[in-house]
């Protein structure tokens, strides 16, 4: 049910964006977006036309969606970081825009951690204890949520400031202080567990149940 709602939300957002892009006369981008959405959802669309209902979202589809979302995040993080770096260099705001540098670094680090998690997660997972694995997932989630919160805060800060005409403080503080701090904590924490998992040859014996050790 969640997947169906998510798919519906993506469809509606894409439709609104396409209308917006057409109204801005950005036809090529609108066409590219429409084609992209059609390619991603072609199976669901075909099933909907043929059987008048969405196909089941089984475990294989869910796994693929998670991988796609992770790839999308990596692309977003790397693209944003590059964009921020270029803006900084071209406009020569190095002295004034320190927050941009911090965010760029964090975005790059975030991209790196997610790239590592995508490539090495299968190797790290069996070598971490249950508790360590849970903490690694929590750190990765904190980093991802902080990234989203940071970007949203910057956008909301600009919108509110633009509408009210006064410098908005709440979203500014979230975007400049809280989100980067949380992202930093999440990234450093996940890196620590990743390195721990990669450097460990096998799971420590303490994880075996007591009965088995006694029998052995």
């Amino acid at each position, binding site marked *: 049910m969640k997947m169906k709602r998510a798919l519906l939300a993506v469809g509606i957002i894409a439709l609104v964006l396409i209308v917006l892009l057409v109204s801005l006369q950005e036809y090529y981008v609108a066409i590219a977006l429409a084609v992209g959405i059609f390619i991603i959802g072609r199976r669901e669309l075909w099933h909907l036309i043929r059987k008048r209902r969405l196909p089941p979202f089984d*475990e294989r589809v869910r796994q693929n969606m998670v991988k796609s979302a992770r790839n999308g995040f990596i692309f977003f993080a790397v693209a944003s970081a590059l964009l921020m770096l270029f803006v900084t260099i071209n406009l020569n705001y190095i002295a004034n825009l320190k927050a941009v540098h911090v965010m760029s670094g964090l975005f790059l680090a975030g991209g790196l951690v997610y790239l590592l998690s995508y490539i090495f997660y299968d190797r790290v997972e069996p070598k971490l204890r249950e508790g360590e694995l849970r903490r690694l997932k929590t750190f990765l989630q904190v980093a991802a949520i902080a990234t989203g919160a940071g970007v949203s805060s910057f956008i909301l800060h600009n919108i509110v400031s633009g509408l009210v005409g006064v410098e908005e403080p709440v979203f500014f503080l979230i975007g400049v202080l809280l989100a980067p701090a949380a992202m930093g904590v999440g990234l450093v924490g996940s890196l620590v567990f990743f390195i721990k998992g990669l450097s460990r040859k096998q799971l420590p014996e303490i994880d075996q149940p007591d009965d088995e050790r006694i029998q052995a």
Partner: protein
Amino acid sequence: MKTRIREYRAKYNLTQEKLAELVGVRRETILFLEQGKYNPSLRLAHNVAKALHAAIDELFIFDD
């Protein structure tokens, strides 16, 4: 990993689509399972085995 899903499907005269409906997955998932390109969860393996009236180790054969 090799599977005998195709063999059992033929035995019960089931199409990939019909089996997918019985198990509650997509037809492509059955196709990937038959080709041994997808490692199913224990639950999915159980559901497929139940739909084909077979044991899990009869359907999924591991080389080692």
